């Protein structure tokens, strides 16, 4: 185990995979000389050279499609989309090409493509630069959607992503890049998809999150314990597709209450899927409707107070829990 920052764990995962398999290469905007806009690729250009760490023009659709093409020809490309906000100009490539070719071709071709992108609000970047669209990607069959909350998971899940024969959308929360955590040194350490992690155990309520919201759940759990004598299960989904609902259900069957937390807008968001599945699989165990604590239904405002109000907070989670008792 070594303690490192999220961004360094992500870089390590890419480094190890590039060293392990020469088919792996990276491309993206400013991942080379600039070092990546969130510094996740810093140093890799020097180590691997411009062929395997390729700076690209500002052409998201072009480079994602190029990643699909290179994957069709046997390479394992990682395409970095600087932020999830810019994935919208490349969405057709992700949905109509990457996610479907294996199926459409009747299994003839695979698309081992890893798409990394930074997500999330909270930095006063305004309406077009603060999206959390993890749930949108999770909606499309053919994709695997990964949203790590801790450096160790980030490394194990990203390394696992490079072994997946079909496309993986790997989404990193900008607020977590600086987060420190224990990371296994063993280059063989992988984290399997579809396995949620119980990061804290309790009796009174189940708090479900992924990526950044896991930490809100955890802080809320601490507040509940400290101020209200309540204990909570905190579940980190780790991957949205495949979704490990079984772990959530087992927890709810003990706690009989659940709150789902995500940064994204509540209306039509992924929290609704989780809430609906909890109802479907644990209806008779629920003492209260599953609550959703999510982003407010507004384009993200620049002003800090408004943005804070627009995003879910641990206080909101605590409030939601108290409201269901």
């Amino acid at each position, binding site marked *: 185990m070594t303690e490192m920052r999220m961004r360094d764990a992500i870089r390590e995962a890419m480094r190890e995979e590039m060293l392990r398999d020469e088919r792996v*290469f990276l491309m993206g905007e400013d991942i080379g000389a600039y070092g990546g806009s969130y510094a996740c690729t810093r140093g890799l250009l020097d180590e691997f050279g411009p*062929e395997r760490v390729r700076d*690209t*023009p500002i*052409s998201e*659709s*072009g*480079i*994602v*499609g*190029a*990643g*699909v*093409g*290179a*994957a*069709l*020809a*046997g*390479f394992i*490309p990682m395409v970095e989309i600087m932020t999830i906000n810019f994935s919208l100009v490349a969405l*057709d*490539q992700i949905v*109509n*090409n990457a996610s479907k*070719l*294996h*199926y*459409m*071709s*009747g*299994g*003839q*071709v695979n698309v081992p493509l890893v798409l990394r992108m930074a997500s999330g609000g909270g930095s006063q970047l305004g309406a077009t630069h603060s999206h959390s669209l993890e749930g949108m990607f999770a909606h499309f*069959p*053919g994709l*695997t959607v990964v949203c790590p909350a801790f450096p160790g998971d980030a490394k194990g899940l990203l390394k696992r992503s490079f072994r*997946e*024969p*079909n496309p993986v959308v790997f989404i990193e929360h900008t607020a977590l890049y600086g987060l420190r955590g224990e990371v296994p040194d063993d280059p063989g350490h992988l984290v399997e998809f579809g396995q949620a992690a119980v990061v804290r155990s309790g009796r009174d309520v189940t708090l479900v999150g992924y990526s950044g919201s896991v930490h809100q759940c955890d802080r809320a759990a601490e507040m509940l314990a400290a101020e209200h004598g309540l204990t909570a299960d905190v579940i980190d989904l780790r991957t949205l597709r*495949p*979704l490990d*609902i*079984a772990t959530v259900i087992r927890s709810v069957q003990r706690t009989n209450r659940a709150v789902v937390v995500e940064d994204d807008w509540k209306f039509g968001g992924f929290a609704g899927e989780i809430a609906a599945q909890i109802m479907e699989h644990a209806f008779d165990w629920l003492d209260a409707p599953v609550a959703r604590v999510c982003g407010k239904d507004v384009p993200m405002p620049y002003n800090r107070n408004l943005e804070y109000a627009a995003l879910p907070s641990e206080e909101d989670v605590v409030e939601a829990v108290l409201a269901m008792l």
Partner: protein
Amino acid sequence: MSVSEALPAAVGEPPGGDLQQRFLHEMLLIRRFEEKCAEMYARGKIHGFLHLYTGEEACAVGAINALRDDDRIVTHYRDHGHALARGVEPDRIMAELFARVDGTNGGRGGSMHIFDAARNFLGGYAIVAGHMPIAAGLGLAAGMSGEDWAALCIFGDGGVGEGEFHEALNLAAIWKLPVVWFCENNGYGMGVPFDDSLANDVYKIAAAYRMPSVRIDGMDVLEVYSATQLALAHCREGNGPYFIEALTYRYRGHSMADPELYRTKEEVERHRQRDAIQRLKRSMIADGLLDETAYEALVARVDAEVDDAVAFADASPEPGLHTLYDHITKEDGEEPR
């Protein structure tokens, strides 16, 4: 960079008699296969969108015959002709159109998405220009693999209006990727004449990316073949991409649903006079490579191939419902919980 309307045929090697026989055979096969498809569609054997290739045969046959087996191909949804020219069995293509298990894609893809990975035929794509960045990626892979195969990307004039055209050509140019961009300019994007939708001639826009760009007669299979040979040589020598605009024409509507309100019967007739098959037939007869009886025999042989394809397709079973979740992320998937 060279922008020319001169025939590059001189430079590529001229196709000999055997090759011309082969071109004639393949063009006829495509012609009759497509006409049979129209019939099968009318009979309710084929469903969904069906875009036929009649009139454009010289493009597929000329361009694809210039390729090596290890060259990769991606094309658009009007793809039967390209698949046939690549040597994909008519049986398996027809079976795919009939949505049967013996179809190229096991009945999952349909007319717009014929794949034959074993032949490096990496698919028909139905999002206009959506496959152009994929071609750039194939070219990137060729370069990184150190091999000298190239990617052939076939698309229509309408695709030039999409942003992917620009992004893909730019990537290919700055990275000197071995991609032959082959634009089948049949004069229309559905019902819109291409000169209403483009600011300049296609090959001139392409030339702005500083790659060689030529406009050729897409109704002359020999010219298409030679131009593509030339383009491939350019790519294999590591000189980067090459652009070909082939002027052609589709005889039928855009798809089976097209009321064809946007063009006259006369216009179509005019173009039929340029028919690529008749043209090759005439020149082969003039060169003593063919006579009427031999031609009739070839037609008969092709019709037999097409009938066999229909019989094969008809005999093939439909995929079972238990296979619904196969090939999504796992080979034998099951319904997610």
